[in-house]
C-alpha cells in the first residue's frame, strides 16, 4: 500500500494527501545529489508540526536524511503551539495546515511562531485574505473560523506569531462557483516592522496612485507594529486584495528583502518600487484569476475533491504547476479525476441553461441568444472550468455525542 515518491518536490502535498487518505508514503532521494543532502530544517520542523497534529503517526528518516517513511495517524487537532523554522515563513506551515484543518477530531486552535512575511512563501496576510473566503464557502459558515496576526516578524530572526482557529466538519459542502464577478473594491495592508512608520505611508501612496486608475474604492490599512509585536528583524511590505461582487478575493503581495541579502543587486527595498511591484503583481493575478487567485487553486481543488459525492464546479485561470501537480496527486491518492474544460469553449447557451436550471425561479430566459461576439469583454486570460464529484470524504476522527 505504501506509495513511493522521489525527491523533495511537493513535500507538503504528499504529506497532506498521505495523512488524509491514511496511506503511508515513502520518499526517496531527497536532495541526494546536493552538497547538503537530506531534509532541511524547515522540513523537519514541518514533520514535527505534523506529529503534533496527529496521533499515532510514524516518521522514519534514514541517517543521511535522504529517505523518509511516513505512516499517518489520526488527525486530533486541539490546541497546538509550534515554533516554525526560520528558513521558511509561517505561510509555508500554515498552508499545509489549511488542507487538513476541517478534518480534525477536535477544533484546531493553532499558534504558529516564526517569520510572518517573506518573499518566498505566501505571507500570513495573503492567506488571511485569500484562503479564509474559500474555506468559508466549503465549511458553510465562518462559525468558529478565526485568523489573527498577533505579532509580526520578518526574516532572518522572525519573532512573529499568528493564531488560527478552525472548526471541524463531518463533511464539507459542495460548491458551484462559476461566476467570477466584477471587482468592486481593493483592500490591502501595508505593514512595517522595526522601521520608520512613514514607510508604510509611502507604500500606500504609491499603490493607491496606481490602483485608483482602475477603481475608486481602494483602501489600504497601515499595520505598523511596535515593540515586541514588531518581531526581531526589520522589514516591511504590502499585501493587496481585490474583492469581486461574488465574494472572490484575488491577492498579491510584495515584501522587502531581508537585510542580510541586501548586498545583492536589487532596488526593491525602496518602498515605492515595492508598492509598484505589489500592484503589478495584483494586476497580474487579476489577469490570471478565476474565482480564486493562483494561491487558492490547489486549496480549492483539495476541498472539491474531499467533499461529498456531489458535483462541485469552479472557474479558474490557467493552472500553475503547483495545482497541476496537486491534481495529479489527487488522482494518485484518491482516484479522483477532474473534468477540465476551457470555459470559453462552452457555447454560451449551455452555460445559461445551466444557470437557469439552478435558479429557475428568478432567472430570465435569454431572449436574444445571438449575443454579438465582436465586442468581447477584456477579462484577462482564458478561464478554465473544473468539475469534480467529491470522493464522499467523511471525517473519520470526529467523536459522536
Amino acid at each position, binding site marked *: 500500500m505504501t506509495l513511493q515518491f522521489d525527491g523533495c518536490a511537493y513535500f507538503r502535498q504528499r504529506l497532506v494527501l498521505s495523512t488524509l487518505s491514511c496511506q503511508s508514503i515513502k520518499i526517496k532521494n531527497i536532495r541526494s545529489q546536493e552538497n547538503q543532502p537530506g531534509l532541511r530544517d524547515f522540513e523537519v520542523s514541518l514533520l514535527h508540526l505534523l506529529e503534533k497534529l496527529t496521533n499515532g503517526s510514524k516518521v522514519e528518516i534514514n541517517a543521511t536524511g535522504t529517505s523518509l517513511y511516513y505512516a499517518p495517524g489520526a488527525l486530533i487537532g486541539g490546541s497546538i503551539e509550534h515554533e516554525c523554522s526560520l528558513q521558511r515563513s509561517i505561510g509555508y506551515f500554515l498552508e499545509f495546515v489549511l488542507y487538513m484543518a476541517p478534518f480534525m477530531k477536535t477544533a484546531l486552535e493553532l499558534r504558529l511562531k516564526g517569520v510572518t512575511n517573506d518573499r518566498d512563501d505566501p505571507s500570513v496576510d495573503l492567506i488571511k485574505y485569500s484562503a479564509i473566503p474559500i474555506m468559508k464557502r466549503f465549511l458553510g459558515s465562518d462559525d468558529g473560523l478565526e485568523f489573527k496576526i498577533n505579532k509580526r516578524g520578518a526574516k532572518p530572526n522572525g519573532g512573529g506569531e499568528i493564531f488560527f482557529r478552525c472548526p471541524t466538519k463531518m463533511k464539507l459542502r459542495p460548491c458551484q462557483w462559476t461566476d467570477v464577478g466584477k471587482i468592486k473594491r481593493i483592500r490591502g495592508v501595508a505593514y512595517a516592522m522595526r522601521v520608520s512608520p512613514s514607510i508604510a505611508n509611502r507604500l500606500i501612496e504609491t499603490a493607491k496612485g496606481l490602483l485608483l486608475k482602475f477603481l475608486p474604492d481602494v483602501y489600504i490599512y497601515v499595520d505598523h507594529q511596535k515593540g515586541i509585536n514588531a518581531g526581531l528583524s526589520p522589514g516591511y511590505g504590502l499585501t493587496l486584495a481585490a474583492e469581486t461582487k461574488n465574494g472572490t478575493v484575488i491577492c498579491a503581495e510584495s515584501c522587502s528583502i531581508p537585510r542580510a541579502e541586501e548586498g545583492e543587486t536589487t532596488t526593491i527595498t525602496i518602498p515605492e518600487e515595492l508598492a509598484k511591484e505589489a500592484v503589478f503583481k495584483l494586476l497580474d493575478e487579476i489577469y490570471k484569476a478565476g474565482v480564486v487567485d493562483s494561491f487558492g487553486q490547489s486549496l480549492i481543488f483539495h476541498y472539491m475533491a474531499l467533499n461529498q459525492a456531489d458535483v462541485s464546479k469552479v472557474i479558474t485561470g490557467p493552472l500553475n504547476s503547483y495545482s497541476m501537480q496537486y491534481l495529479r496527486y489527487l488522482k494518485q491518492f484518491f482516484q479522483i479525476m477532474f*473534468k477540465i474544460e476551457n470555459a470559453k469553449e462552452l457555447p454560451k447557451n449551455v452555460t445559461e441553461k445551466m444557470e437557469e436550471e439552478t435558479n429557475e425561479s428568478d432567472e430570465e430566459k435569454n431572449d436574444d441568444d445571438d449575443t454579438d461576439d465582436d465586442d468581447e469583454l477584456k477579462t484577462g486570460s482564458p478561464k478554465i472550468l473544473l468539475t469534480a464529484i467529491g470522493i464522499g470524504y467523511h471525517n473519520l476522527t470526529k467523536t459522536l455525542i
Partner: protein
Amino acid sequence: MDEKHKAFRKPTTGVKAERRKKKKKEEDEGDNQQSSSLKSSKLEDAKRRNPKAFSIQNPIKAQQEFRRTQDLKEKRIHLPEVDRTPLEPPPVVVALVGPSQVGKSLLMKCLIKNFTRQKLTDIRGPVTIVSGRKRRITFIECRNDINSMIDVAKVADLVLLLIDAKFGFEMETFEFLNIAQVYGLPRIMGVLTHMDLYKKMNKQLNKRKTQLKHRFWTEIYQGAKLFLMSGMKHGEYIQRDVHNLARFISVMKFKPSTWKTTHPFVVADRMEDLTEPELIRTNPLCNRTASMFEFYMMMFNCVRINNLGCGDYKLTNISALPDPCGLPGDRSTKTKQARRVLNEKERLLYAPFSGVGGIVYDKDAIYIELGGSHSHRPSNTNEKTRPINEYVANILSTKQTIEEKVASSQLKLFADSEPVIAEDVQETERRRMKFETEDDDENASEEDEEPENDDDDEQEDDDEEQEEEEDDEQEQDNDDDDEEEDEEENDDEEEQKEFGNSWKENISKKFAISYVPNKAINWTRLVYEKGNEDVLSEEADSKNNNKEVGGLFSISKRKTINVNDQEDYTLMKQNDKHNWNIDNISELIRDCFVTGKWEKEKDAANLLAEDDEMDDDEDVFGDFEDLETGEKGTSENNKMDYDDDDDDEEKDPEDAKLQNKKAKLKSQFDAEYDQSKEPDSKYLDELRKEVDIQTKLNRSEFENMPDDERVQYEGYRPGMYVRCELTQIPCEFVNTFDPRYIVILGGMPVTESHTGYVQVRMKKHRWHKKILKCKDPLIISLGWRRFQTIPYYFMQDHNMRHRLLKYTPQHMYCHAIFYGPLTPQNTGFVAVQQIAGRTDFRVTATGVVIDLDKSTKIVKKIKLIGTPYKIFKKTAFIKGMFNTPLEVAKFQGASIRAVSGVRGQIKKVVKEHPGAFRATFEDKILLSDIIFLRAWFPLQVPKFYTPVTNLLMPMEQKDQWQGIRSVGQLKRDKNIRNEPNVDSLYKPIERRERVFRPLVIPTQLQRDLPFHLKPKSGETTTMRDPITEKQRVAVVLEPEEKKMTDIMKMFTTVYKDRLKTKQKTQENRNAQYKKQQKIQEIKHLQKHKQLKRVVYKKLGQMEGKKTNRNSRSKKNDTVDE
C-alpha cells in the same frame, strides 16, 4: 345517608327565564339566516366580553402541550438529502430468508416462474430477472447460517421472511430480524408457508394466523405485510398467492440505507478463475486471480474490496460490460405507446450459476451454455431446443459491439498466454469461444495511438518554441499577447542570471502557453497524461543551452534539476524585476472591474431598458398587482385566467418573448404562494431547494458523456454490469466454491481501508443468556467486514475517564473498544460469539460506532496497599506499598486513604524499609489501619483482528468457521481447572450467640419513674453481671480454709463494728462542732446587727440635717424671688 334531593328546575319566571327565552328566539332566527357566521361572531363576542374564560387556564400544561405538538411536528421532518441514485436503477435485491425446510427454494421458483414464465429446476446463486419497464429483481436465497444471514441483511432491499405456520416462529427468524435492524432495516414481508397442514378454515388455523401476525407486527411495525401461501398444487404454491406476492414486490418502493448509498457493493453472480493453467499445474495451491461479475451499486472508484467471508483484496481491474439483463425501456419508445406489460422477449432471466442465461459475455471471451458436457449434439439443434435460442440468433448483431469493446480495452490479460479452452479443470460445462484477432488488435491499436500522441506533443512544443524565439528577436512588440509572454520570458532570463537554476522553466513555459489567449489548451491532457512534465522541462533546458548572456560570458549551467528535486514553493519565487507597462495591462483587464464593461444580461443600463419594456407589458396583464396582494380566492381565479391567456398566446407565435416573461412571473408567483402556505417551513424549503438543485446538477453534469469517459470522472454507476478482477485470492476460494453461498464484494473508500481502534456503544442482546466477559474474542460484523477481535468493555466516567469493566452490564449500554477496520461513525454492528455449533440465541450484542482513533485511553483501577509501622500525631510511616524509593518518588504527593476514611498524602521517601515513605493525614490513624493508594493503570488493547473466512472452508463446513477460542472455552476443552486462592474460598461461618447486658436503671431514675414503669419487687434492679454470674463456680472449701475464712469473717465483722463505732463518735463530734459553729455565727450576727444599727442611726441623723438645710435654703430662694 341516601337522602333524595329534589332535582334542579330551571326557573320559568323571572329575569333569567326571560333572558333565556329571548336568547332562544334570537338563535332560531339566526339559524334561518347564517348560523355559522353568527356563531363565530358570537364566539368573538364572548371572547371580548369574558376574556378570562378563554385565556389559558393552566400555563404549564399549555406549555407542555405546545412543546409536544412542536416536537411531533419536528419529528416528521427529515433532513433532505441529495438523491444519488441513477436514473436507471440497479436491480432490487430480494432475499428469501427463513429456517431450513420452510420452502424458500420453492417460493423462489414460483416467483421466477411467475415473472418470467420459465421454470428453473435447480437454483444456485442469485437469479436476476426483468420484472417491469423500470425494474429488475435479483433474487437471492439465504442459507440457514449466521454468516449468510448477516451478509444478506447488508445488501437486501426487500426480505421475504418465510415462516412455517405449523411450527411457528423459529430462532433464526428473530436472529435475522435483529441482525437486519442493525444495518438499517430493509423492507420486510412475512410469508406464512405450510398452511396446508391445517384443515381448511379451521378455527385453530385462524387463531394461529392472528397469533403469528401480531407477533410479527410487534417485531416490525403494526400492519406489516404478511402473506399466506394457502396451499400447494402440483408441488407448487397456488398461483394466485404467488401472483399477489409478486405484484407487491414489483410495485414496492425502497429507500436504501446510508451505508449502501455511500459504499459500493457487488453481488457476484458469476465467478471465473483466470489463473494461468500452467501455474495451477505446477502449484495447485497458488493464489488465484478471479473475476466476479455483477450489477454494481456504487458511486466512486474504490481500491480495496472486501470479499465478505473471505478477507480484503485489492481490486486490480474493473470494467463495465454490456448488460445481460437490460431494461427494455428503449424498445418501448419505438412503439407508439409505451406499454406497461412486458412481452415474452423482454422477460429476461439471468442466472449463470444456475446455468441459465444462455450466452455470457466476458471482456475477452463469450461463453455459450451447452447444457452439460455430455451433450454431443450439434450446437444449433441444441440451442433450438432451449429457450435461449433467440440469444444465439443475436450473436451476429452483438458481435460488433464486443469487438469494439475488445479493441478499446487496454488490458492484456491473455496477451502471451495460451487460450484457455474447454479442457480447463473448472469449466466442464462451458466452452470458451475465442476471437482470433483479439490480441493483435489490442496491440496494434495501442501502438497506433501512442506515436500519434507523441507527434502531437512535439508539434505543439515546436510551435511554441518558434514563437518564443521570435519574441526574443523583437523585444518591444506592441502586440498585447506577445508582450505578456515576453515579460515572462524576461523574468526567466533574469532569474537564470541571478540564481543560475532553471527549475522554474517549466512553470514559465506553462504560463507562456496560458498567456496565449486564442490557443485552446487541452488541460486534461496536460494534467493527467504521463510524462508531460518531463518533456516540458527537458525542452526548456535544451533551450537554455543556446542562450548566451553577453558576448563573453555564458551561463555556467548547472546540471538540470529534475522535477522531483524542485523546492516546495506554492507560488513562483518573487526575486525579479519587471518592466511593467500599466496601459497595456489595463487594456487587458479593464473589464474585470465594476468600472469596466458588463455582460449584456447584467449591464445596468440594459436591465433598466428591459425593465421599462416589462412595465409596458405588465399593463397588458393588469391583474398582476392583485396577485401580489396575496388574496387567495381572487388570486386563484386570476391564475386560472392567466392560464387561459397562455393558451391563447400560444396561437400567435410572434409573442414568444411575452410568454417568457409571463412564465417568469408565474414561477415567481408560485414561489411566493408556496412560501405563504407554510411560514414555518421556510428554512426547510430553502434546504430542500438547495438539495434539489444539487441533485439535478449531479444528474445532468455528465449526462451526455460517453460511458467509458464518464466512468473516469463519476465512477461506475449503480446498476452497471461490471467485471471485477481480484488477485491473490487463496486457492480454497475457487476450489471449494459453492454458488449457494452468495458472494458479495463490498468496496471501501481509501480512508476506510485500514485498521485502528474502534470505539463503540453497545448493549448485550436481551435474549442472549450470558453477559460478556472482557477480553473474550467476539465475531463482529461491522461495515462490510466480518471479523474476529478482542473487545475491551468500559464505561465513561463523569470526568470522561474510560474505566475498564470486567463484564458487560446486564441490561445497560456500555462502551467497548477493539482493534478493527476504521468504519464511519454511526455505523451499526452486530456481534456473535461463535459461528460454529448450536447455541441458544446467537446475536450476542448490537451497537454503533462512535469514535475512531489510533490509540486508546482505557484505564483500569488499581489499589496499592500499605501498612503503617510508626505513627506520630498526624504523620505516619508506611511500608509495603512500594518496593523501591524510585517508585515512591514517582508517587510523591499522591493522595492516600486509610480504611477508616482518613485522607492523607505521600510526603517523602524513608530509608528504613525499601519503599517506605512518610505520609501525613488529616487525623491520627491507627496502627491497625490499612492504607490505600487508588491509581489508574492504562491498558493496551491487543491488536488482534482476523477476518472470518468462512468461504474458504471446505464445501460442507462453510458454517463451521472457528477463530480463536476464549480462555474459558480453552480451559473447558483442555480440561484445565485453576486452583483457587485459599483465602478466596468460602468457608462455613461460625457465629457465637451474643449475650447482652440487662438493662440497668439507676436508682435515682427508678425513684423518679411512674409506678407502672418502676421495676417491681422481686426484680432485682441491681443485677450482677450476668456474664460473670454465668462464669461463677460454686466453691467447696477445705476445713482449714474454712477455718481461715471464718477467722477472716470474724476479723472483718470486728473491723466493721469498730469502724461503725468510730463513725458514730465522729458523727457526734461533728454534730457538736456544728452546734458550736452555729452559736458562734448567731453571736457574730447579733454583733453585726448592732453595729449596723448604730451606723444607720448616725447616717439618718446626717441625712436629716442635710434636708433641713436644703429646705431652708429653698425657702430663702423663694423669699428672694
